[in-house]
């Protein structure tokens, strides 16, 4: 029982982390990124290569891949998203355009990963030592993943809510039309937000790869789960994403443990459906 709670929190912590990235991208840059999960998977494979070929510790890989995720997303925004933002007559048009372009991006990233690594499962063994937590045994890598998720997620919350930089980003999320009146460069804020989202996808990928197997085609599932967490928590709400991420991780782990591991996605969908019917604006969303 307690074992499942711990495992659920580990999984949920990772979900919360990546969903925070997606909710920042959607809330501030107004871009619905369907290629998000594939960026996570790309980071998983990058960590895998760094660990198995160059013997680089995943914690060190984090220092390489998180800035890389930031730079790559920044470039994607400049090259692909900027023209779309510039030409979109309204928010609805941008939403449709960004969904379509990132759907194309999904196939490109997935195609590259398939060409490089093939379609099989990949994993590596890192810090696979049992640790005793409150009377149950948990793998060290899972515990480390939870600690990392909490630390990085917490740092992100502090940055967003306690710094001037974060306030600028939140202002753009809240009132994109009024923000320029206060001297805020909304375009730059959107690009920064998109890049931060990419950096968090990379973080999620590194953390996830420490304790889970992954395939080149698994991106869709991660995007889906991150999207559900974002909606569950309320669009653009960071605290909502954290609570909903942990909740989803727990639901998934308990369904896998007590019902059937093959039905976790169905359970996730069931949660999504119930929420859509009961609270379409999310747990923390405003009407």
């Amino acid at each position: 029982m307690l074992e499942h709670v711990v495992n659920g929190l580990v999984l949920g912590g990772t979900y919360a982390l990546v969903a925070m990235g997606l909710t920042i991208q959607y809330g501030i840059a107004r871009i619905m990124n369907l290629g998000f999960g594939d960026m996570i998977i790309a980071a998983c494979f990058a960590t895998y290569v760094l660990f198995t070929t160059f013997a680089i510790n995943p914690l060190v890989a984090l220092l390489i891949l998180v800035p890389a995720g930031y730079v790559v997303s920044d470039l994607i925004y400049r090259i692909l998203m900027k023209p779309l933002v510039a030409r979109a007559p309204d928010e609805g048009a941008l939403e449709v355009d960004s969904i379509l372009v990132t759907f194309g991006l999904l196939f490109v990233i997935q195609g590259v990963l398939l060409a490089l690594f093939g379609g099989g499962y990949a994993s590596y063994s890192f810090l696979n030592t049992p640790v005793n937590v409150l009377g149950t045994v948990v793998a060290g890598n899972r515990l480390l993943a939870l600690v990392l998720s909490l630390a990085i997620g917490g740092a992100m919350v502090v940055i967003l809510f306690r710094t001037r930089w974060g306030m600028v980003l939140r202002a753009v999320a809240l009132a994109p039309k009024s923000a320029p009146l206060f001297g805020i460069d909304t375009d730059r804020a959107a690009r920064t937000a998109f890049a931060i989202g990419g950096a968090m996808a990379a973080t999620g990928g590194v953390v996830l790869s420490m304790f889970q197997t992954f395939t080149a085609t698994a991106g869709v599932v991660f995007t889906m789960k991150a999207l559900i967490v974002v909606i569950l928590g309320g669009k653009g709400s960071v605290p909502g994403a954290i609570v909903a991420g942990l909740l989803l991780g727990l639901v998934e782990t308990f369904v896998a443990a007590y019902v059937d591991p093959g039905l976790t996605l169905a359970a996730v969908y069931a949660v999504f459906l119930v929420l859509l019917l009961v609270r379409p604006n999310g747990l923390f969303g405003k009407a």
Partner: protein
Amino acid sequence: MNMKTLHGFALAGVAVVLLACAPLLISDYWTGVLLGMTGYVTLATAWALFSGPTRYISLATVAFFGVGAYTVAVLNEVMPYPLVLLCAAGIGMIMALMVGLSTLRLAGVYFVIFTFGLAELVRQTVSWWEVNVTYTMGRYIFLPFEGRHIYWQLLALAVVTFLISWAIGRSRFGLALKALGDDETVAAHAGVDVTRIKLLLFVISSTIITLVGAIQAPRWTYIEPSIVFNPTVSFMTLIMALLGGAMRLWGPLVGAVPLFLLFEWLSVSFPDHFSIILGLLFILIVFVMPNGVLAKIDDLRKGGRT
């Protein structure tokens, strides 16, 4: 019915007769190509039937397509073929109703997200069912069909799809639809039951897509979830409909024919890099339309009216 529509019908009729005779004259390989093309023309037209006027982007084409194919795989030995098709259509319809009822009254983005994962959900659930309940993974379809038989069925379905699309465009229902596409709020205030119309259209569109999957299923002989729930199908349908223009009756056809031939060639020439090329091509198509896909659709509508 004026002279122009009459001419249009006569031309379309001749084209259909010619297309129906084609397999008797050309090789089996080209019949196969025609078959695949007709399949995609039908998929793209059915997709545009719903997504064109409502502007809800459905990413779930393959969920319905796969369900159709899988229904045939499961039932082909226990029932006569027409009944199997009927069952497939029924299952597709029920699934569309469930998805539509839970998402179509909300903002469009919820629908997109829901359909985005639907194929994966159905694929995993079917796999789970097969492994844990029926203890079979992968099924065989033994139906006495050659390529041309399947092709004729698809051609008939394509004709029906076009007729439905044409009839909706001319009816009172189509008028409501135009109002809905222009401005949903205004349409709702003018007494259009927005959700009901969206739902009805989604069910019609999805049922046709399910039938395309069901009819094409015998082509594979061997079927398993990873084959029939291939996300590339959703993706290709979307590109074709968008390239041709989802708002016009012939738009999806115009997009589907050249893209299908291109994809056929690409998948043979670059089997390992197919999805990369496909993705880049798709991004290019979205970009080449200078004022965004929605505005492009609007332009096409204005051009189509004058």
